[in-house]
């Protein structure tokens, strides 16, 4: 494993040697090339989504809200979208706040997922009636009036609203490009969304501040929302599951999935979206490191809970471990352990793999599947308890329930909702050009090649 030659990254990614006009051309090419390439997958997506909606109407809804187990896969779809699509914009903010400029071509790829938030929001509204009130059961609302229904819905509404605002503001300057140069079909919406944007000095200064602040606000709403969801959907539905770290586990692993989703989006854009100039090894490497770190955190947060239960050994802790780890959902757990932690660690610990494009992409795909399996494990376990097991402030899981095996309708719901989210993203790409001109052009002058004696250096500007 010797390092040879100039392996230490003394090569500058092509992105930073482009002229601003090149970037604008790429973006224009993007908005003008809307054609069959995207139409077919969108069509498939719409069909699958409609099938999913029909499946929801035909199965859980017909069963009624009282039978919570019938809603298991609606909840899985909801939580999975919250863990992936809703987490991606938070990554975008984190990278912005950290002032790392390699992120500039990446932001759009993670922010665009905010447009899917309407689907989890609607799913959440559908799921709310399946929960009993909190007066007579343990919950993080402590019997507060109208909980969890009203307050949970308000939180989700805040998140959805902030997400759309974030997606809108961060793409304002690019929407103006579509407004001025797009086809008449695109212009309408873009013009409406980018009213008044002329790119004045004042507007740019406002833009940077506002995007930063809305992004931070999004994270500040996202974390409590995930805390509440982890509590309402999982902890409160499993009697005796007394764990304070679980909401943190749920949130951190969602960030992990959000990173994975961004990496996969980047890989797709690179392969089929003509973004090879913008999304290169630099971005995959950096996000690969982040994905590795979060895969380690997956283990850390899981272990923090496990070791306490394993040492506590009270009957209720043993039963929870049997349900989630040891017996009922043993195989989903093992798969989730392997795909969220073991495989990412074993693959990404090697620097040459981290520094490639394929390496992080493959691991990101593994993590996306692993996260889904993890959410299936947790949700299935939680949704298999009838109300009677929860009421009266039940403190212990007296009987470990059998595993819930999904049927065809469950799979249709899951696939349909994910397809719906993908369709929304594909639709949004009509209005949001790749690369993001505002981001990339704003960073072009911050990186350059400079000859220094016999070396050719990469110089990185630190404007802040």
């Amino acid at each position, binding site marked *: *494993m*010797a*390092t*040879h*030659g*100039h*392996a*230490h990254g*003394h090569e500058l990614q092509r992105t930073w040697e482009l002229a601003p006009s090149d970037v604008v051309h790429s973006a224009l090419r993007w908005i003008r090339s809307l054609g069959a390439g995207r139409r077919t997958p969108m069509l498939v997506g719409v069909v699958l989504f409609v099938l999913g909606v029909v499946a929801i109407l035909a199965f859980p809804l017909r069963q009624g809200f009282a039978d919570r187990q019938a809603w298991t896969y609606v909840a899985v779809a909801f939580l999975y979208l919250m863990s992936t699509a809703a987490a991606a914009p938070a990554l975008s903010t984190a990278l912005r706040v950290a002032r790392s400029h390699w992120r500039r071509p990446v932001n759009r790829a993670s922010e665009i997922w905010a447009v899917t938030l309407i689907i989890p929001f609607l799913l959440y509204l559908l799921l709310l009636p399946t929960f009993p009130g909190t007066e007579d059961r343990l919950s993080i609302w402590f019997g507060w009036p109208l909980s969890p229904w009203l307050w949970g819905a308000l939180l989700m509404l805040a998140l959805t609203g902030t997400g759309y605002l974030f997606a809108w503001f961060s793409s304002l300057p690019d929407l103006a490009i579509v407004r001025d140069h797009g086809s008449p079909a695109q212009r309408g919406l873009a013009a409406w969304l980018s009213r008044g944007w002329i790119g004045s000095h004042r507007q740019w200064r406002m833009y940077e501040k506002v995007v930063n602040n809305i992004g931070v606000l999004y994270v500040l709403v996202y974390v409590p929302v995930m805390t509440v969801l982890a509590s309402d959907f999982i902890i409160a539905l499993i009697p005796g599951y007394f764990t304070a770290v679980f909401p943190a586990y749920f949130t951190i692993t969602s960030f992990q999935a959000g990173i994975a989703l961004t990496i996969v989006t980047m890989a797709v854009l690179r392969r089929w979206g003509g973004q090879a100039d913008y999304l290169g090894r630099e971005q995959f490497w950096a996000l690969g490191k982040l994905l590795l770190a979060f895969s380690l955190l997956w283990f850390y947060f899981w272990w923090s809970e*496990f*070791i306490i239960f*394993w*040492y506590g*050994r009270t009957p209720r802790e043993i039963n929870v471990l049997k349900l989630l780890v040891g017996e009922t959902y043993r195989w989903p757990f093992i798969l989730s352990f392997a795909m969220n932690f073991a495989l990412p660690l074993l693959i990404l610990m090697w*620097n040459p793999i981290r520094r490639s494009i394929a390496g992080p992409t493959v691991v990101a795909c593994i993590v996306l599947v692993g996260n889904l399996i993890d959410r299936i494990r947790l949700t299935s376990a939680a949704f298999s308890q009838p109300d009677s097991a929860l009421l009266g402030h039940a403190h212990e899981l007296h009987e470990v329930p059998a595993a819930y095996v999904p049927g065809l309708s469950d799979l249709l719901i899951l696939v349909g909702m994910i397809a719906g989210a993908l369709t929304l993203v594909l639709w949004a790409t009509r209005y949001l050009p790749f690369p993001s001109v505002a981001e990339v052009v704003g960073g072009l002058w911050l990186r350059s090649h400079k000859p*220094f*004696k*016999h*070396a*050719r*250096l990469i110089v990185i500007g630190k404007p802040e």
Partner: protein
Amino acid sequence: MAIREVLGLYRDLDSAVAAADALREAGFSRSEFEVLSNAPYPEGTFGEESGIHRLFVFPLIGAACGFAAGLLITGGTQLSFPLLTGGKPLLSIPPMIIIMYEGTMLGALIFTVLGVLFESRLPWIGRALYDPRITQGYIGILVRTAPEREAKAIEALRKANPEDILTENGNVGKQPARS
């Protein structure tokens, strides 16, 4: 001694780079001279190749040793004195993992530092030409070559406006002695 050393001292970066160039023009290969400085310059400044090293092997070996030690201590002490505590299994794996983890990391850390020292050839107690002015900010260019090429090396080093040129026989000055 079959190898002779010559050390040229330069006040600034430009003349040091020029000296390295002069040496290369005079037919000295890059392995025959090294650049001494008081802080790193960007890699490749003096036209050096980044050398081959095996530093990344060290932490792996250390980690393996530490892991094995942790496994032996935790597994061994539990099995050789089987005492049931707190209703836990006689061979309790979760606590073993914690100590094995620390052992692995300790091994990796110690071996990495050993590797850094080994790859930097430290500690180094041999004798070689050196001048304290190097840590003051002067750049030293140390040539190691056959005795018959020593004069050629001095000549090359002189081309780049040196502050001083030291040989094993003492300071030979920046200009050739007038005869």
